[in-house]
């Protein structure tokens, strides 16, 4: 009796498994080859949190207004700072069934898709619409690989913002002057320390917070032009300015909260706003985080550009690309890209996302005080790409940098840092 029973069970299990497999296959089918034609559009991104999802909806509403009757499939994947979404996208690209458009950081990250032949050349669309003239040169350049355009920028974040706590600074009688350079910053921070407060809040449980601090110091010491040359191997990580920056970084690290490797970037930003320390370097996504935590801009926290000899805008960008092959709905995707570049859409998107528009003609008068200031600086400052966010160089180089920063945080050995970065300049660019 027992054996036939077991047989029945295993047969049932096998049948169930094959049933799942079959239904799984058929469920996949419509995504690849739908009969819907041009009235459909599928978008992949990693914008799933409250403000991000709202911002994405602005874009979706925009394209629906431009193409009435279009149904948009929002295929956002949450988690891992976008890495989950990128893994999911990678699987679809390899299977040859891409979405109509997907979110991409410009420059470095874009390059890996271009190298893989996966994103469409948009140069014609750019020249037809004369988009390059509508944005700062640095931004237009970041959308290119080898002189051709492959993506469309929707918004701009700034990486090198120093968020400050006015109460802690005034108690120590310190004012941070962006023109005072790194030396001025360090002496201000030491003054804060002498007044008995912790000068710097840092949260580098995820190493990008440290990478971004060090990159801000290197930019300030070496200047925007040399920063760019680091990624064409025309300027070396062995240069005296970089060495000096590493020393500065070490000093600033010694002035930071001791538990920095145990807390995350947002925890560090909130610590600063709560008065646990005087300053916190973080990209301007911290602004949204602080406002969400009911902190008042101007009273609970203020901001300055990270001090340096020139006004540098450390650019962290968001944009969208479309697939080079097997695009399911080419016409809708085209309308989507044009919608993204609409100044009004860019303004509405920025209002939700906390970033600033990439297009100069976008109206910023309704945005927050911080955003207006950033937009003004964006138009005049030297715009460079962030390495901590894999934009200034490809993913491999960026990972080598992140690892070198982690190692430096533990050992403080500048020679080892320089050795691994100069080696990477030779082999990974």
């Amino acid at each position, binding site marked *: 009796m027992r*054996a036939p029973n077991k*047989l029945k069970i*295993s047969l049932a299990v*096998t049948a169930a498994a094959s049933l799942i497999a079959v239904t799984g296959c058929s469920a996949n089918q419509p995504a690849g080859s739908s009969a819907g034609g041009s009235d459909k559009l599928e978008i992949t991104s990693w914008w799933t949190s409250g403000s991000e999802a709202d911002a994405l909806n602005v874009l979706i509403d925009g394209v629906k207004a431009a193409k009435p009757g279009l149904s948009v499939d929002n295929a956002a994947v949450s988690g891992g700072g976008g*890495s989950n979404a*990128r*893994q999911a*996208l*990678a699987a679809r*690209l*390899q299977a040859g069934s891409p979405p109509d458009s997907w979110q991409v950081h410009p420059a470095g990250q874009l390059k*890996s*898709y271009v*190298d*893989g*032949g*996966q994103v469409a050349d948009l140069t014609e669309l750019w020249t037809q619409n004369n988009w390059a003239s509508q944005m700062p040169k640095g931004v237009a350049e970041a959308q290119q690989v080898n002189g051709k355009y492959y993506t469309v920028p929707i918004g701009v974040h700034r990486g090198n913002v120093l968020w400050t706590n006015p109460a802690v600074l005034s108690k120590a009688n310190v004012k941070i002057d962006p023109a005072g350079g790194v030396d001025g910053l360090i002496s201000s921070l030491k003054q804060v320390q002498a007044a008995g407060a912790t000068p710097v809040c840092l949260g580098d*449980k*995820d*190493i990008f917070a440290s990478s971004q601090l060090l990159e801000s110091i290197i930019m300030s010491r070496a200047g925007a032009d040399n920063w760019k040359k680091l990624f064409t191997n025309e300027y070396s990580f062995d240069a005296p300015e970089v060495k000096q920056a590493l020393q500065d970084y070490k000093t600033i690290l010694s002035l930071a*909260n*001791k*538990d*920095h*490797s*145990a*807390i995350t970037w947002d925890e560090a930003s909130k610590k600063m706003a709560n008065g646990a320390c005087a300053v916190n370097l973080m990209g301007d996504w911290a602004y949204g985080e602080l406002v969400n935590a009911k902190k008042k801009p101007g009273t609970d926290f203020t901001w300055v550009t990270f001090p340096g000899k020139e006004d540098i805008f450390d650019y962290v960008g968001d944009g969208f690309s479309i697939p080079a092959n097997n695009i399911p709905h080419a016409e809708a995707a085209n309308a989507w890209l044009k919608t993204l570049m609409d100044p009004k859409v860019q303004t509405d998107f920025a209002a939700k996302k906390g970033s600033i528009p990439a297009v100069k003609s976008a109206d910023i008068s309704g945005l927050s005080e911080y955003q207006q200031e950033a937009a003004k600086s964006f138009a005049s400052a030297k715009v460079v790409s962030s390495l901590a966010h894999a934009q200034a160089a*490809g*993913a*491999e180089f*960026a*990972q080598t940098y*992140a*690892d070198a920063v*982690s*190692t*430096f*945080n*533990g*050992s403080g*050995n500048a*020679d*080892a840092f320089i*050795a691994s970065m100069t080696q990477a300049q030779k082999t990974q660019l």
Partner: protein
Amino acid sequence: MTTSTALPPAPVSPGPRPKKQVPHNVKTSRRAAWIFAPSLLVSFLFVYVFIGITVYISLSNWKIGTSPDLSLRQPFGGTYAEIVQEQRFQADIRNVVIFTVIFLVLAILGGLIAALFIHHVSVGKGLFRTVFLLPYALSFIVTGVAWRWIFSPSTGVNEILRSMGIENPPGWTTDPTILGALNDPSGTDFLKVQFGIPVALLPIIFAAAWQLVGFAMAMYLAGLASIPEEHLEAASVDGANVWQRLRHIVLPQLWPSTITCFVLLLHVALKIFDLVVAMSGSGPGFVTDVPGIYIYNYLTSRYDKASAMAIILLLLTLAVIVPYLIRGYRKERKA
């Protein structure tokens, strides 16, 4: 005497199996082959074929995850040569070895003590069993977040320590110190990390052991239940004290449970990922980095490096599991 007659039934049932009376019922065995075929095929495909693919990728030039490059890297095995000299790789190997050793000792000893306690306690047996086993039912991410708060230098246990008057409580997972360092690398040597016990790893090992003590306990409770009462009674009659009974009767009979615990917990230790991610991440200078995090970080930027690390992790596991399997196989053949 009674025990020797009680024992045989167990070995009797697996006894006839090795004699293979297949021809007796060819139909059944054919049917068995058909039933097993799908699972054999699936496990062959998803385990061995995929291991083979991973080995191949680790030897190839495939860097960016989305753009495959299957040409073989020159010189052969260059990726392995590249990663073994990395500071991060060396730190990872140190960490995973230290983690495994201390974790196994803590979890197995803790499980044994808990099992002995519960076995002998007369009230609230079920309650204690549940209390010890409960953490095992939780996810590492959930407990990891709680442990992160407990061992956060500015909050958690340090609050208690400070209120007790200790001015400089430990930095826990943020402490880059290496205990008992065997070497002092200058930066130009092949060895780029200090080999010793990373202090920052200890809270994580403790958290992992806490979570799996219940599992070890359950294994030992099963082992304890199978020790015949008569053995212990006979020993008592002969005048053996509690310690002697434990040392000479209980522990030797628990040896199979210990081996099983060891093997099952070992792979938890080697594959540890989620708990570390939740508690500390890579840590300053990779003091709490483990191969799992390494693989995850390099998946999108260096597919070949991530694959090479996965293979090294597999070899580490095999180095311990294979001797165990061989031992088990030999025993079976003897039987």
